[in-house]
């Protein structure tokens, strides 16, 4: 009996053996064609592991609207706020890489 698997019907760029960059490195495209675009005015929420933290930081630095819903009260000194994970993600749910199996969490979960 023929077994279906998750790679059936996937586009060429998701297969190494079809990767044109293997023959001509200038054709290598590690991202592919995104299925959506983020505009600067879009609110972006992050969750996941340290990879999601990096994504959040770079989005914010690049002028995107990294939405942080849980702000520290002004009485909290910066160092303590950082220890308590304020600003790390959109809310203080912490780094979820240990509770989320790799590859099965939200975008950015590592």
């Amino acid at each position, binding site marked *: 009996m023929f077994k279906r698997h998750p790679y059936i019907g996937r586009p060429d760029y998701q297969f190494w053996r079809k990767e044109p960059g293997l023959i001509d490195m200038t054709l290598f495209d590690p991202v592919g064609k995104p299925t959506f675009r983020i505009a600067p005015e879009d609110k972006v929420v992050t969750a996941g592991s340290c990879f999601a933290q990096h994504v959040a930081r770079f989005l914010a630095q690049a002028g995107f609207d990294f939405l942080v819903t849980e702000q520290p*009260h002004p009485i909290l*000194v910066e160092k303590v706020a950082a*220890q*308590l994970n304020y600003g790390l993600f959109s809310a203080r749910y912490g780094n979820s890489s240990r509770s989320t199996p790799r590859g099965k969490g939200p975008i950015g979960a590592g």
Partner: protein
Amino acid sequence: MAENALTNVPVLILGESHCTAISRAIGDDIRDKFVAVDVRIGADTSKINFDLFSDFCPSNILLSFGGTEHNIVGLIEAEPRFDFLWPPFDDFDDGRCLVPASAIEELIAYRVQSGLRRAMLVRERFSCPTFALAPPPPFRSIDEKTQLPQAFTTLLEAGIAPPALRRKLYAVQCEVMRRQYEALDIPFIPAPATATDEEGYLLRKFWNRDPTHGNPAYGRLVIKHLRGKFDV
């Protein structure tokens, strides 16, 4: 050249501003049993004058460093006004911004570190049993005689935080201090229960103009509390 002989003393109390009330309460009748020294160089809490207590050979030392961190966090109203949940107190004001109790705890733990470091610098000079003293409990309200320490007076325009909030902050401070000192094998001695009213506020007779520090009457109460504990 012969070294100076050390003075034996059953209880040596070393600390900063909160030590002053105790030192003022030590009369001639107990001077051979208790010695209290404010170890600061002037009002500079960052420096310790070790010479002030180098001639003593104590049987016990009591540390009274820091202790006003709860006031720094919440004596004066912050903007936005905040409250937090800290059982068994059930007086949360839902008109205020909720700050997680863990954040308050972490903040006070962070602020307490400085006093703890100084306390440990003092402790390492001795090998006798060591204890840590709680700061005085929070006052309920100020009156016309009140004069807050200078650090707070410039902020007073914002108002003084409600007593219920300050009582919780003090409870967090004591819990944090207890945990941190006990982790270093230093038992923590709470303030005498008789220093407060039934709701846990420092009785008016135990502070003079400055409600954040006990007066000599408070010092005498602490000494009485300690005499029972150390059997001296």
